[in-house]
């Protein structure tokens, strides 16, 4: 879509847009003095990382509703390793990713063989099992969760600069860095043989198999890679907010992540989750609505977008150009809108 808006050969404009986004991302904490806003933006970025994982699995044609599970695994693994084993945060940040990846491998080997619908149901069950395990077993802190998780340890950079992570600002830069790594890895994957194989599997699994693509193995890759990043995001989340509790990793979290992805547009692998997550998290904050009304607004926005913009928010420019890919008799409202436009 972005390509269409900006005309394909205008790579300079694209570069300038990216530069502006980068500059805004860097100076954002200086503009927002209130740490509460920075906290919201950190949460948005964590959601973006999770939603991007969901979209990656979706690009291979599978739907997961248990992405919060690997986030929880990462958060709890990091918490336990730091608080009970006594490891450094910077090791656990990667270890939690590896642990989440190993668990994804163990479960994924079994469940990628199921039919697509059964896969979705089983991911819901995996999410629930993780939620119940961390809630029920006292070792993981029970329903009350674990409080007082230490902040990330300070690191010393060259030129005698020591970065402390006691302030929200440095945590913000850390998560932006992680997001950047995540986006680069995903971008590389989508543009490689693996990404093309996922697209082929989504279009037609049988045909892909005849072309020599091992569908199960590629689906497994699409299941594990997001899990690793979700684990890293979970570790970051636990140490930034200093508390993990089972209720923040429940079924509704997974549902919300799916909503972010769908709202942004599932065909926009990287930009879709970013826009969806930002839109849905920032809109209630901008209007400063009460906590009670927030799900109502979320539901209404979701319904409106799903009915009128099947391709997500990012398909709006395409929609205005009149090529949403919708066939003939779709929606009465849609037809009325179209007529008005002409």
């Amino acid at each position, binding site marked *: 879509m972005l390509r269409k808006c900006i005309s394909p050969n205008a790579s300079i404009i694209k570069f300038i847009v990216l530069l502006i986004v980068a500059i805004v991302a860097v100076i954002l904490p200086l503009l927002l003095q209130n740490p509460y806003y920075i906290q919201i933006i950190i949460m948005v970025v964590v959601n973006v990382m999770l939603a991007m994982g969901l979209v990656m699995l*979706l690009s291979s*044609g599978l*739907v997961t509703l248990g992405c919060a599970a690997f986030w929880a695994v990462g958060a709890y693994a990091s918490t336990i390793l730091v608080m009970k084993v006594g490891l450094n945060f910077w090791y656990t940040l990667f270890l939690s990713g590896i642990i989440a990846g190993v668990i994804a491998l163990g479960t994924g080997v*079994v469940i990628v*063989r*199921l*039919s*697509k*619908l*059964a896969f979705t*149901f*089983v991911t*819901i*069950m*995996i999410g*629930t*099992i993780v939620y*119940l*395990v961390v809630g*029920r077993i006292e070792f993981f802190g029970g329903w009350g969760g674990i409080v007082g998780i230490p902040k990330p340890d300070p690191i010393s950079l060259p030129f005698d600069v020591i970065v402390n992570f006691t302030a929200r600002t440095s945590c913000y830069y850390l998560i932006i860095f992680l997001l950047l790594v995540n986006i680069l890895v995903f971008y590389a994957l989508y543009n490689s043989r693996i990404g093309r194989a996922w697209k082929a599997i989504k279009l037609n699994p049988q045909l892909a198999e005849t072309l020599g693509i091992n569908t199960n193995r590629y689906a497994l890759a699409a299941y594990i890679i997001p899990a690793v990043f979700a684990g890293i995001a979970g570790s970051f989340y636990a140490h930034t907010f200093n508390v993990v509790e089972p209720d923040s990793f429940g*079924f*509704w979290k997974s*549902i919300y992540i*799916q*909503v972010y992805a*769908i709202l942004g547009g*599932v065909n926009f692998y990287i930009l879709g989750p970013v826009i969806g997550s930002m839109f849905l998290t920032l809109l209630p904050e901008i209007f400063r609505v009460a906590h*009670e*009304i927030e*799900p*109502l607004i*979320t*539901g*209404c*926005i*979701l*319904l409106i977008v*799903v*009915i009128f913009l*099947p391709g997500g928010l990012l398909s709006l420019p395409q929609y205005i150009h009149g090529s949403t890919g919708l066939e003939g008799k*779709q*929606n009465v409202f849609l037809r009325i809108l179209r007529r008005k436009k002409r």
Partner: protein
Amino acid sequence: MTGALFAQLVVNGLATGMIYVLVASGLVLVLGIARVFNFAHGEFYMLGAFTAYFVVTLFKLNIILALILSLVLGAFLGAISYRSIFHYMRGDLLRCAAASIGIGLILKQSIVILWNPTSHSIVSEVFKRVIEIAGVTLSVGKLIVIFLGLLIMSGLYYLLMRTKTGKAMRAISLDSKTASLLGINTVKIYWLTMILGSGLAAVAGGIVAPLFVVSTNMGEGILLTVFMIMVVGGIESLPGTVIAGILIGLLGSFGYHFLTGFSELFMFCFVSIFLIFRPRGVFGSFVKEVY
């Protein structure tokens, strides 16, 4: 374990299992025939329970009337949501899922805002009574639930297997395009299925209301259990769902007695292991590629 305790646990398990079967079969119908992945199903169940609660407690009406009213409300909600939303995105499971999440959020939060989210319960004379059969004390309410569940399920069986509408529904679940070619009005059947499924969820909520507590969180809880039951039953097979629902109900009842808090976890792990050995549910086959 004494025989009396065993009988009580079996009755409890059957009663819970019946509720699961009612809700799950509604969802299976909606998913298998109308091709709507309905996340608002749990909220329909919750609304059915709230309707029964209000009719009995505030308006002091009969419990039977309450059940009929919750059935009507559920059917009405299903009809409205299908005709105004799902109809325009039929065939696209992901969009249906997203829209139903939106509907669920709106329904649940409007209940939370209108009435405080504390749990309520209906005081019903008939349901709280106990009877003694052959030296075993049993709750009348649970027996009524089992009876009502059997009644509704046999009605559903009659509808699906003995009427022309049921035949059309089965035809559509096999192949909607061919069914449409053979002169079946598919849109009408989709609509009817959605009404039926939502009505089943709501009437299950109405039946639960006098027995357990009525709270705004009940929809979410049962939805997860129902998903588990559908996985065990084979997702699109109605007989499999019935067996799986009763199985999970009994398992929950016995598990809660012996393991208390861990019973849910135990159940989910049991199902996972079951799935490794039988990935296609109780009766196998039936699972079709839908996405």
